[in-house]
C-alpha cells in the first residue's frame, strides 16, 4: 500500500500555522523572569493573534477544500475564526492583573494562561473550518480542554476549581454524546466528510433511524457546548466561578466557533434532512429563550446573570439556524459579532469592578457607578441596553435580522418568542442599569478579598498563610489610575455596539458575505 500525502495549500491553512507557531513561542517565553514575562509574552500572543487575523483577512474570499477536504476554507469559517481571535486579543489585557496570573510559583503565570488561551483559539479556528466529523471532534476537544484548565486557573478560589471540575465533567459528557451521535451518522451514511454525508443523506436516508438518532445526539452534544437549554445547567456556575477574563472569552468565542460548525454541519451535511431537525431545533430555541430569560430574573451576581442571558441569546441565535435560509445564516453571523461586542464590553467592566469593590461581581458592586465612574457606567449601560435589544444598538439590529429570518422561514411564532423573551429580559437588564444610574453607591467599598484559602493541590501551610501581597496592593491602588487599557477597550466595544446600531451596513454586508459561503447548500 502506498500512501500519498494529500496536497496541502499552505496559504489556506496559514492562520492555523501562525497560531501553532505562536503557541510554541509563548511556551518558550516561560523561561523569562517574572518581571519581563508579562510584557514579552503578551506581546508575543498579541502579535500571533494579529498575524492570524491578518492571514484570515488575506484569505477572505477564497473558497476551497484544504487537506483532502478535512477543512473547508470559506468566509463563514473565517468569520467565526475572526470573532474568536478578536475575543482572545480582547481578553489578554483583561487578564494582566488577574491574581491567578500574578503569583509566581504558586499559580499559573502569564505563559501558561496565554498558551492555553491560544490553544483554545486554535481549536476554535479549526472548528470553524471543520468539514469532517473527525476534525470536528478533535477541534472541539482542542477548544475545550484548555478551557477546562483555564476555568480552574484561579486555584485559590474554591469556586474557580469547582467551575473547572464542573465544566470538565459536563463538557466531557457533551463531547461523548456528540461522538456517539457522529458515530451513528457515520454508520448510517458511511462517510465522515460533510459533502459525502450530504449526498448519502440526500439519497434516501432522511428518515433512516440510524441517521436520525445520530442527528439527535449530535445536536445534543453541540447544544451542551453553546449552552442551549435544557443542556445548560453548567453555564451559570461555570460563568460565575471562572476568572472573569476566561468567562468573557468562553462566552463569546466558544459560541462563535461552535455556532459556525453547528451551521456547517446541519446545513451542509444534514441539509437534506432539514424537515426532520428544523422543528426539533425550533423547540430547543424556544425552550432556551424561556429558560434563559426566566432564570436570569432572580440572579444577584452579574456573571451568573450574563450566563443565563447567554442561554437566552443562544436561543435567539439558534432561530437563525432553524430558519435554514440564507437570511437566517446571515442573521446568525451578524448576531454572533454583535453578541461578541456587547458581552466583551460588559465583562471588561466586571473585571474592573471586581478588583475595586469588595462585592465581586454582585450587582451591588455597580451601584452608583453613573455618578462616580462614568467611564465604566456608559459601556456597561450600552452593553445592557444592547443585550436587551433596544434601538440604536447592534443588539436591536441583530434581533431585527433574526426576526426577519424567522418570519421569512415561516417560523413567525419563533419571531414572537424572541419578542416575548426580550420583554422578559428587560426586567433584569434594566435592573443592572438602574443599579448603575439610579441607586446610591453601596458602602463600604472594601478592598477585594482575595484571601480565600486554596483547595485542591494546596499544601496546608499555604492555606494558613494569609496572603498579603499581589491582590491586596492591586486593590488598594488609587481608583481610575489603573486599568486604562481595559477602560479603553470597553469604550471601544461599546462604541462599536452603538456604531453598528446606527450604521449597521458594514457589519450586515460582512455577515451576508460570510453567509454566502453556504449558498450552494441552501435550497
Amino acid at each position: 500500500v502506498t500512501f500519498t500525502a494529500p496536497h496541502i495549500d499552505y496559504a489556506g491553512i496559514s492562520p492555523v500555522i501562525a497560531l501553532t507557531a505562536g503557541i510554541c513561542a509563548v511556551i518558550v517565553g516561560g523561561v523569562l523572569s517574572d518581571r519581563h514575562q508579562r510584557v514579552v509574552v503578551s506581546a508575543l500572543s498579541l502579535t500571533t493573534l494579529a498575524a492570524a487575523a491578518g492571514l484570515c483577512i488575506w484569505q477572505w474570499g477564497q473558497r476551497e477544500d484544504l487537506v483532502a477536504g478535512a477543512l473547508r476554507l470559506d468566509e463563514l469559517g473565517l468569520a467565526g475564526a475572526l470573532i474568536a481571535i478578536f475575543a482572545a486579543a480582547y481578553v489578554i489585557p483583561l487578564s494582566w492583573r488577574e491574581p491567578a496570573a500574578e503569583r509566581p510559583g504558586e499559580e499559573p503565570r502569564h505563559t501558561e494562561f496565554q498558551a492555553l488561551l491560544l490553544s483554545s483559539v486554535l481549536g476554535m479556528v479549526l472548528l470553524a473550518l471543520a468539514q469532517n466529523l473527525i476534525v470536528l471532534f478533535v477541534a472541539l476537544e482542542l477548544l475545550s480542554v484548555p478551557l477546562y484548565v483555564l476555568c480552574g486557573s484561579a486555584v485559590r478560589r474554591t469556586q474557580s476549581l469547582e467551575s473547572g471540575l464542573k465544566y470538565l465533567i459536563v463538557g466531557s459528557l457533551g463531547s461523548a454524546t456528540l461522538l456517539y451521535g457522529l458515530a451513528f451518522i457515520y454508520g448510517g451514511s458511511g462517510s465522515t466528510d460533510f459533502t459525502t454525508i450530504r449526498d448519502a443523506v440526500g439519497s434516501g436516508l432522511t428518515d433512516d433511524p440510524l441517521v436520525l438518532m445520530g442527528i439527535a445526539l449530535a445536536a445534543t452534544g453541540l447544544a451542551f457546548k453553546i449552552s442551549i437549554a435544557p443542556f445548560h445547567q453548567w453555564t451559570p456556575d461555570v460563568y460565575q466561578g471562572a476568572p472573569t477574563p476566561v468567562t468573557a472569552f468562553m462566552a463569546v468565542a466558544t459560541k462563535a466557533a461552535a455556532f459556525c460548525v453547528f451551521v456547517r454541519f446541519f446545513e451542509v451535511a444534514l441539509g437534506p434532512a432539514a424537515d426532520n431537525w428544523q422543528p426539533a431545533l425550533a423547540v430547543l430555541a424556544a425552550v432556551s429563550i424561556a429558560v434563559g430569560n426566566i432564570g436570569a430574573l432572580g440572579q444577584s451576581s452579574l456573571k451568573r446573570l450574563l450566563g443565563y442571558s447567554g442561554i437566552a441569546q443562544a436561543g435567539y441565535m439558534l432561530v437563525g439556524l432553524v430558519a435554514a435560509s440564507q437570511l437566517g445564516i446571515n442573521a446568525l453571523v451578524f448576531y454572533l459579532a454583535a453578541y461578541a461586542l456587547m458581552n466583551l464590553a460588559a465583562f471588561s467592566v466586571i473585571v474592573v469592578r471586581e478588583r475595586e469593590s469588595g462585592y465581586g461581581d454582585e450587582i451591588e458592586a455597580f451601584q452608583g457607578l453613573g455618578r462616580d465612574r462614568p467611564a465604566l457606567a456608559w459601556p456597561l449601560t450600552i452593553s445592557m441596553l444592547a443585550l436587551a435589544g433596544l434601538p440604536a444598538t447592534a443588539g436591536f439590529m441583530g434581533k431585527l435580522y433574526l426576526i426577519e429570518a424567522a418570519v421569512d422561514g415561516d417560523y413567525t411564532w419563533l419571531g414572537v418568542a424572541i419578542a416575548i423573551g426580550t420583554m422578559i429580559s428587560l426586567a433584569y437588564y434594566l435592573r443592572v442599569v438602574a443599579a448603575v444610574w439610579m441607586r446610591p453607591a453601596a458602602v463600604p467599598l472594601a478592598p477585594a478579598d482575595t484571601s480565600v484559602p486554596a483547595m485542591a493541590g494546596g499544601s496546608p501551610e499555604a492555606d494558613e498563610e494569609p496572603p498579603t501581597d499581589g491582590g491586596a496592593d492591586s486593590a488598594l491602588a488609587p481608583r481610575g489610575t489603573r486599568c486604562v487599557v481595559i477602560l479603553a477597550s470597553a469604550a471601544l466595544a461599546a462604541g462599536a455596539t452603538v456604531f453598528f446600531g446606527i450604521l449597521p451596513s458594514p457589519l450586515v454586508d460582512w455577515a451576508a458575505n460570510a453567509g454566502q459561503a453556504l449558498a450552494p447548500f441552501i435550497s
Partner: protein
Amino acid sequence: LIQVMLWLPLAAGLACFVVPRRGVSILATMGSLAVLGLAIAVVAGFHTGEPGLQQTVNESWIPDLGVRYQLGVDGISLFLILLTAILWAGATVFSAFRMPDRARVYFFMLGLAETATLGAFLAQDLLLFVLFFDLMLVPFWFLIGTFGGENRVPATTKMIVYTLVGSLLMLVAAIATAILASDQVGHLSFSLADLRTHTLGTGSQYWIFCFFAAAFLIKMPAVLVHGWMPDAYRAAPLPVLALLSGVLSKVGAYGFLRVVLPLYPQATVHFQELILVIGVAGILYGSVMAFTQTDVRLIAGYSSIAQLGFITIGIFSLRADGADGAVLQMVNHGLVVAGIFLIVALLAERARSEDLARLGGLAMRAPVLAAIFLVITLANLAMPGSANFIGEFYILIGVFQAKIVYAFVAGIGVVLAAFYAIRLFQRTMHNRKPAGIESREIGVRDALVVAPLAACIVALALYPGLILGRSDTAVKDKIAATAPQPTASASKDASGRSAGWTGYAPLGTP
C-alpha cells in the same frame, strides 16, 4: 432642513458632555431654541393643499434588510413636529433655570428624547418609525428613574416594560408586514409608500392590526392598558412629565393615522367598534377618575386619558371631520397639558405639596399666574371659543356621522371635563389659603416659559384654521384608504359585511 432639525438636539446633547459645567444649560437652551426655529421654518415653508410628503429625504440605509432612511413631512406630522419643538424648548428652558444635579446626563437624555420623538414623526419607513418609537423610551426611562421622585425605579421600570411589550410586538408585526408584502412589491421593503399600495390579505391584517393597536394604545395610554400611568406620573420630574404627557402620548395617536389606517384598512374597519368602545370608555373613566383624585398630577394624568379617548374616537370615526378634529386636538391637548404640568411645578414650589387638599388661595398675590392658569383651564375644558372646543366639535361631528350612539356617550365627557378642570383651578387658586403656603407671583424666568404656551393656546383659539387648513388634505388621504374597502372587499370576505351587519350604515356607502 428636517435632517438638521432631527439631529440637532442629539448633537447638542452630546456637546453637553464636553463643554464646561456652567455652559451646559446655556448650550441645551440654545439647542432647543434652534430646533424650535427650524421647526417654525419647516411650517413656514409648507405648501398647503398638497396631500403628499414634502421635504423628503430618501437614502439607502440597510439595503440587505430593505430598510431605508426615509423622512418627510405632511399635514398630519407638521404641527406635531412644531408642538414637539415648542414643548421641548419650554421644558429645557424650564429645567435650565433649575439646574438639576448631573445636568449633563439630564440634558443629553432630553436631547436624545427630542431626536427620537421628531424621528418618529418624520419617519416614512415603517422600520425607522418602529426604531424611533422604541428609542423614545430609553431617555424617558433614564429621566424618570434618575431624576424622579419617590419610588421612581419601580415606576419607571413598570412604564418601560408596559410600553415595550407593545412595541416589541409591533416590531414583529412590522417585519411580518414587510415580508408578507414582499411577494407583491418584488423585494423586501419597509417603505410606507410601497406597503400602502400593496396591502395584505385580511387574515394577516387582523393580527398585525392587533399588535400595532396594542403598542399605540399602551403608549397613549388608553384605558385597560393605562396601568403604568399613575405610578410613572407620580414619580416623573414635572418638566419631563409635561413632555411625556404632552408629546409622547400623541405618538400613539399619530401612529394610528400614519401606519394603521393606510396599511391595514380592512382590519381598521373590522375593529372600528372595539376601538371606539375603548375610546369612549377612556373618556368616561378618565373624567370620573380625574374628578376623584386629589393628587394634582393624577388629575392632569387622568384628564389626558379622557382627552386621548376623544382623539382616538375622532380617528376611528373614519370620517375626515373626525380625524381633522383629532389632529387639531392632539396639538391643543399637548399645549394644554404641558402648561398644566409646568404650572403644577410652580404650585408645588410654593406649597411644597401636590395634594389638592393642602392647596388653595394661591391666586391671592399672584394674579398673572392665576390668569395664565385660567386660560389653560378654560382651554382644557373646551370652552366655546377655544381651539379645544373646535377640535372636540369636529371629532363629535365625525362620530355622529359614523356611529351616533358613541357620539352621545362621548358628549357626556365634554360636560365632565368642565367638572374636573374647574375643580382643579378652584381648589388650587381660590378657597382659603392654608397655612404654610406662600402666594408668590410667577417669576419672570418661569413666565418666559409658561406665557408663550398660553399665548399659543390663545392664538390657536383665534385661528384654528392654521392647523386645519394644512392637515385636511393629508387626513383625507389617510381616511380615504379605509373608505372604499367595504364595498371592494365585500365580495371577497366577511369584513365588509361585518361593518354593515352591526346595524349602522356601512362605511363608504355614498
